[in-house]
Structure formats: C-alpha cells, structure tokens
C-alpha cells in the first residue's frame, strides 16, 4: 500500500498514541501481514491506543468500537509521541460511525 494512503506515517520503531475524536474503542489490534495480531493498550478515555513500536512498511490497527446514536464520524489523529516521530495525514483519515469495526492504516519508514 502506498505511503500516501496511510492515516498515520512515522519512523519505524516509533512509540506514539493514535487517537480518535469520537466513538468508544473497546479493542485494538495491530496487524502486520504474516504476523499474529498484537493487542494494543486502550486509553482510559476509550479514544486512544498506544502503538509501542511502529512496524516498518504497512500495518493496520483494527478497532472494535461502540458508537452512540448520532455521534459524528471519528477523525484519526496522533497524540503523544514518546519516541521517534509520527504524523497524521492531512486531511485526516476517518473512521465511520456506521459499523463497530474501524481501521487505522499505518506506514513506518
């Protein structure tokens, strides 16, 4: 997948927090092709997940979400970057509120 299609781009190995601005995340799994998915820690606000180490190349965070009725779609952002660097795309990626499954695409360079 081209880098331009990722929602968050950063340096491989970076530790950062990926955020949504609506919805409630109840599970997050980091998936890399050919590897077992890694369950990620969810923030107390249920709108952030910690990526401990950004994989090189393409990876995907698969989210299980619970949406309240009428809440807006969620914009994908980047919170605290503990190590390395990570930026959200502009315009930001969107997780739509019509399904309990959402996706954040990552690219580590």
């Amino acid at each position, binding site marked *: *997948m*081209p880098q*331009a*299609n990722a929602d968050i781009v950063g340096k491989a190995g970076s530790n950062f927090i990926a955020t949504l601005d609506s919805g*409630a995340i*109840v*599970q997050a*799994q980091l*998936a890399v*092709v050919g590897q077992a*998915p890694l369950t990620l820690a969810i923030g107390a606000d*249920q709108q952030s997940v910690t990526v401990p180490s950004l994989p090189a190349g393409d990876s*995907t965070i*698969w*989210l*299980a*979400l*619970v*949406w*309240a*009725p*009428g*809440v*807006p*779609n969620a914009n994908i952002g980047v919170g605290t970057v503990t190590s390395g660097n990570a930026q959200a*795309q502009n*315009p930001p*990626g*969107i997780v*739509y*509120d*019509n*399904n*309990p*499954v959402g*996706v954040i*695409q990552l690219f580590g360079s």
Partner: protein
Amino acid sequence: MRGFFYFALVFCFCSGARAQTVAELPQIAGLSQTLPESSTGTPIPDRFCNSDPRTEVRSFCPWLSELLRNAQARSEADLRNTLDRLNPANPTASNILIPALSGRLALKSAQGNLLQAANQLRTDQQFGPGSTVAGTTSLVTKAGGAALLGLALDTGALTRTVNGTTATLSSNADELFRLLTGISPDCVINCAEGGFQGHVLNPLSLFGTFALAQSSGTNTPTAGQASGATATNVPSVTIPSGQGKLTSFTVKYQVLNNYDPRSPKFQENWNKQVETLAPLAILEQKDTLAVYNELIKDSNFVALLNNPDSHELYMAAKADATGGQLVNRFEEVWNKAMITVLNDSNLTTLVAAVSQDQTVFRQAWMNAIADVAGTMFSTQYTFNKPLNQPQTHDVTLIFGQNFGQYGSLTFNAAASLYSGALPVNANYGRVHYSQVSGEYDRDVSSLQSSYHFQINLAGYWQYQPKPSILNIPAGTVAPGTTIPIPNGTQEFVGTAGSLGVVQAGLTIKGPAGINIPLRVSWSNKTDLLQGSKVGAQIGMSYNFSSLGGLF
C-alpha cells in the same frame, strides 16, 4: 398488502433522486436535533448506482456517489478517504466489501436466520389481530411489530360472540424498503436514514387481517330466467368471489421517548450499554480480520492493495458526471481484485460469520437505544369490517415497559368510532366503545434454549354506551313471513355497559420463527350475547426474517 408493496416501490424511486449528502439522523424516531453536515454516517447512494444489478456496485454505491459528487470541486488528495473505500483490497473498505461478498456468495439466508433467532426472544411483538376481531388470540395489542414480514393464523374470540379464524400479514415498512431497494447494505448502525425513511417508515408497521371463514361476493344483475314454468323476478344475484375477506387493516407507529444523544444524562446511561455491546463489537472485529487475512492470501487481491486504481477512478468521475464511466471503471477494479479470490473455499464460512455478527450487533444496538431512551409508546389505527356489523375506526394508544429478565408490561387505551354517515333516526351515537387493557409477558426459558416459553396474563375492560348493532341486510326475510326487507335495517343486540375479559396463556416460540400462542379466557359477556363465556384461543405465527435471503 399489494397496495403497500406498490407504495414501497414508488417510494424507492423517489428516494433515489436524493443527490445531496445531508445531515442524517439515526433511524430512531424521536431524535430531537440534527447533526452537522457530512459528520455522521455513510454518504447517501445515488440513482446512477443504487439499483445496479451488480451486488458490488450497489454495495459500494454510497462511495461511488460521494466521489462523483465531489470530483469536480475537490482534488484527488482531498478525496483520499473516499478513494480508499472504493478499493476493495484496502482494509478500510472491509465493512463495504463483506456485504458485497455476502451477496456474491448468497449468504443472506444465514444472516436472516440469526435475526430470526434474536427476534424470538422478544415479548413486545404483535403478529396477529387485535382483541375485537373474531379470530384472535391477543387481548392486548403489543407495541412492536414484525421485523420484516409476519404471517399469523388465529382462531378463537375474546370480545366477540362469534368465533372466527383469521390470517394476518404484518410487515415493518422500513425493513421492507431496505430489502426491496438494497439501500445501505453495509450500514450496521447509525444508518443514513433520515427524513421519510428514518422517521416515517422505520417506526411504521402494517397489518392486514383476513377472515378465512367468510366468503366475499360480488353483486351482479341477472340476464333472465333460465328454467321454470312460473316467472320469478330475480333482478340480481350475489356471486361468491373468494374465500377469505379483509376484515381489518391496521397501521401502527412506534415512538421512543424523545431523547438527545448529546445530553449528559443520555451519555451517562449509554456508557452503561457500551459494556454490553463491547463483546459483540470485538467478535465482529475478530471475524472481519479473519476475512481480511484470508483475502490477502490471494495475489490479485494483494496486487490491487499495493497498486490501487484510485487515480483512474478519480479521473473517471471527473470526466463523466453521469457516473457511467465511474461505474464501469469500478467494475474493472472489482474484477481485478476478485478474479480468483472468490474461488477460495474458506471464504464462505468466514464471510457468513461476519454477516451474522453484523446482524446480531445491529439488533443489540437498537435494543440498547430502546433501553436508554426508555418506555416505548405506540399509536395504532385500525379500520375494522366485522361481519354483519357496522364498520369502525379504532384508535389505540399502546404503552410498553420492558423489565428485562422480569418480563414486560403492555397497556392499551382505545376508542372505537362508527364509520361513515349514521343512518337517519339512528338511536346510537358515533362512539362504539372505549376500552383499557393490560398484559404481562415473561420469558420463562433459558437464553440458550432453542424453544422459548412465554407466559401471558391479561385483563380487558370495555365500556359501550349502547348495545351492539347488527346489520340486517336488504333482502333478508322478516321472521314468520315470506316478505323480504327491501332496504335492510339495523337492530340492537346484547347489552350496553361494561364488558370484562381476563386471559391467561402460554406462547411457544420455536427456533425457526414459529410462534404458537395458547390462551384461555373468561368474559362476563360478549358483544352480542349476555352471560359469561369461557373460551380458548389458539394461533400460529411465522416471522419471515429469513426472506432477506431472497434478494
């Protein structure tokens, strides 16, 4: 019912003309405020693709429409989110891809079966006719209706003197609309169903009751005497035109308590529901990931993931405002990605699992809203055509309260008015009767059980200012004579005043959507006769949720 199907189809074409992405509300009646434009839900599908015969085009239609609407004014980079969702190999498109695959793999019947199982746990659905029909098992009308299409056969009488046997067809207007039009196939929750669909069709249930023991007939003039020496003047005859007669037609509208999802109180109560819904969301996420992991074993699928045709789709949308080029280009993209992956024998099972997860989640999400919003209230109108009695308009207010594992209570308050102009010198007024009634229902079986048993206890009180009216049709011979009554007449029968009924029963709910209500009742009198009556009622209804697999 034919009229309703026609109505649903006509509305389909009207809806298809909507070309704007508007602020849409969830499909729950009673939501009090609109939300900012384009901030919620999926885009609205457009006519150029929403009735396309190809499943994949219809599934991706909201996103094709979104791209077509914006391609002229916005750059390709600005439309990245939309273009990603038009790449079947992109993980963000998985929610759209799975309904498309489900259609391709003919998996909808499995989805329907699961919805049916979920419906069998409910105690608030009405399938048969109301209490005043000859041929009913229900003393109290429930607030809910069939999820898609229901058929009920009932025999017995509660307030009527004459036993009857009826068949009732019932349907939810919005589910039927979604089924027939295929709109929002990828939408599980927060569906973009505002306006007429969200606020009128979704809360609307329709019932048509046919008396199976009554024949219908047509009056026709005779063409002369065919035999006999003595001339007999028979100017017209009634020819039987069918067995089974429409005896009532009912329209029911459900209203949830008015609520504002942004109010702190709603959010506090909703947060409690998140815990309940979380396991179902996690299951769907796990199963969706399993589908995706299976798909990326295919080299053609991965090739499209790594080299998306986003630029070509964007250019096709920009070049042709009718959407024709865009749909053709998308079909090429789809075929490129799916040329071999559909042959994967594991895919059927995996996609079926997600389809079922989505159905269960949708049902649970709707129930969660009903729990948070509180009491369900319905209003119902029935046009009644009882045999040999005046036609009536009946209006019923239905109030339901669900106590979860402790059962549910339903209360009715109704008034019945005589239809049409009253005869000259009528000794009665417009009001036929008024009534109040209540019912308690509780599921007494375990959640895991295939068969569910629900106990039902009900009470009914009706006040009638005048005795019941019996129509004596024209041509009826006066008693003790051979003189036919030329213009017909009406007679009071029975007594005015109170009519009370109590009823106890059991409803057996089978795993395939079959319900068998068994009831016994006692009443102090009936509509036409004085004196108490003990009766039994039995019925059978079928919840046709699995009809979804037909389309």
